[in-house]
């Protein structure tokens, strides 16, 4: 299942990219699964995604808990906590 991944905030800076299209295996169901799968792709991902407490997500433009499934999503965004006012 192809998914467009977008990165914002600290993750964008750490990974040095703002987006990519991925095709995760079928056992990758939730955002946390996705983060774990991405972390296995190399040292840069592992380092950028190491602190799970600072990873937030949105599925198809909606904030979501990282335990949520992204099955059927077209776009998943991963980002550090928002700036605030």
């Amino acid at each position, binding site marked *: 299942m192809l998914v467009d991944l977008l990165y*914002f*905030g600290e993750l964008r800076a750490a990974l040095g990219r703002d987006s990519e299209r991925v095709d995760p295996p079928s056992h990758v169901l939730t955002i946390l699964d996705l983060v774990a799968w991405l972390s296995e792709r190399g040292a840069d991902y592992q380092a950028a995604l190491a602190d799970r407490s600072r990873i937030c997500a949105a599925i198809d*433009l909606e904030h979501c808990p990282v335990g949520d499934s992204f099955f059927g999503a077209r776009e998943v965004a991963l980002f550090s906590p*928002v*700036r605030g006012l």
Partner: protein
Amino acid sequence: MIDIRIQKSNFDPGRQLARLEELHAGAVAASLSLVAAGEDVRAVTIEHYPAMAKRELARIAGEAEARWPLTGIILIFRHGRLLPGDRFALIATGARSSAAALEACAYLREQLNARAPFWQRVLPADAAAQAATRLPAAHPREA
């Protein structure tokens, strides 16, 4: 009236509050956010998630409109490079009663603070000096 703007350019808070006054509200409340000044901050770059920001701001404004009898809501967020002291965001509400305007403004501020998809990258005050220091080392290779 709900007016939501996400823009690079600066804005005039007085003009925006006057727009709410023109709706004959009994009260106008506002919160103006600035880029915090600090000795170690030369500038910041505000990035955002455009499609989600537009949708999330509209949703939050809709929630406030449903909860309080408002005559108007103005939300303005800036993105791009900003300097300490620059205006970053304006939240303004108009209502017949000051209680409604203030409560709605506080609600909007709280929700936007937690949900508006904007991020800040700080350019440290010594970044330019560091960059300048690095340049001569690279230059001989180009010669």
